[in-house]
């Protein structure tokens, strides 16, 4: 399709979209005055029902925990697909890829960057675990904490320690962690199904709102998601880095 035909098709489609978009926007509630019944209700009864003081976490991992499981599997499938695509490609590569800028060498890492990045690895791990563990109390949770955790290996790489990245996150361990994270989410749901009548039932003692050990399965699910997200991001990172380093290494040899 030529680009002029494509533009014409787009503008016809865009005209239709504009009609529906304006129609939809006109039906939206006034900004700042939303009165969604479910949201108001959950803000009132959420703490009492789940012992989680973060109602967003209560919604994500309890009220619509099943939905979040599907979201976690989108993440799982996307990570799996990326790894499959990039690995298959590396294996079938017959001719070394051509380095487009042979004379350009990566600059030497400055000592300041190196020391700063190495110094930040431990705080990143600690902060990530903190965000995961407090997801039911304050803003944060498995998704956010998992991303923070995944920055630790990235900092190792930025410090120029690619070998250190591999030591910090060996591929087998990362792959196992990714699978374990996704599986334990389903496992928690199945235990709920076994102990009561419904999948994802919060079957653990709820504890006192505000305590670190409270809100039952919400805490466990935060750790499951944190593990899956952290491992997934580290896996993505290493696949893309290996892609680059391999191409670069081959053309130098």
């Amino acid at each position, binding site marked *: *399709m030529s680009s002029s035909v494509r533009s014409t098709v787009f503008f016809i489609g865009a005209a239709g979209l504009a009609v529906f978009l304006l129609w939809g926007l006109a039906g939206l509630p006034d900004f700042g005055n939303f009165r*969604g019944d479910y*949201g108001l209700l959950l803000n009132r009864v959420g703490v009492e029902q789940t012992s989680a003081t973060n109602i967003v976490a209560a919604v994500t991992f309890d009220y*619509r925990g099943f939905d979040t499981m599907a979201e976690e599997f989108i993440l799982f499938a996307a990570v799996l697909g990326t790894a499959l695509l990039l690995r298959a490609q590396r294996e079938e590569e017959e001719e070394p890829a051509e380095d487009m800028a042979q004379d350009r060498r990566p600059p030497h890492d400055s000592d300041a960057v190196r020391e700063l990045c190495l110094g930040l690895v431990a705080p990143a791990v600690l902060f990530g675990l903190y965000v995961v563990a407090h997801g039911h109390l304050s*803003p944060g949770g498995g998704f956010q904490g998992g991303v923070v955790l995944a920055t630790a290996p990235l900092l190792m790489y930025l410090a120029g320690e690619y070998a250190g990245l591999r030591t910090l996150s060996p591929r087998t361990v990362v792959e196992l962690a990714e699978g374990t994270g996704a599986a334990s989410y389903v496992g928690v749901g199945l235990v709920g199904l076994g102990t009561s009548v419904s999948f994802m039932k919060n079957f653990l003692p709820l504890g006192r709102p505000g305590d670190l050990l409270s809100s039952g399965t919400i805490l466990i699910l935060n750790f499951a998601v944190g593990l899956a997200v952290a491992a997934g*991001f580290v896996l*993505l990172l290493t696949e893309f880095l290996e892609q680059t380093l391999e191409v670069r290494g081959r053309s130098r040899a």
Partner: protein
Amino acid sequence: MNFLPYVVAAYLLVIGLYGMVTSRNLIHMVVCLSVVQSSTYVVLLSIGYRLDATAPIFVDIPVGTRAVDPIVQALMTDVVIGVTVSALLLALAVQVHKRSGTLDPNGLSSLKG
């Protein structure tokens, strides 16, 4: 200006779509898709917002304090999911470049079976 957040969301949607359609580079196209996706975040957060309200986190404020809607905020987990989907699309772009030697969608008109 009560409708300004919705205007921002609509703008992000339209400009992202326009970018995807006129894109000459698959990586640029993936970025445009992220822009389209971010319009959904703006619209969801704008809908759930309530004036003079705080975050729905009742750890140091009593239950019953005016708070924004927690349900739309729970959908923000998609920010993290969206990044991994972008990574998948970028891996596809790498694959396309290897097979056809170009990242220009116009250069891919002849699909090889």
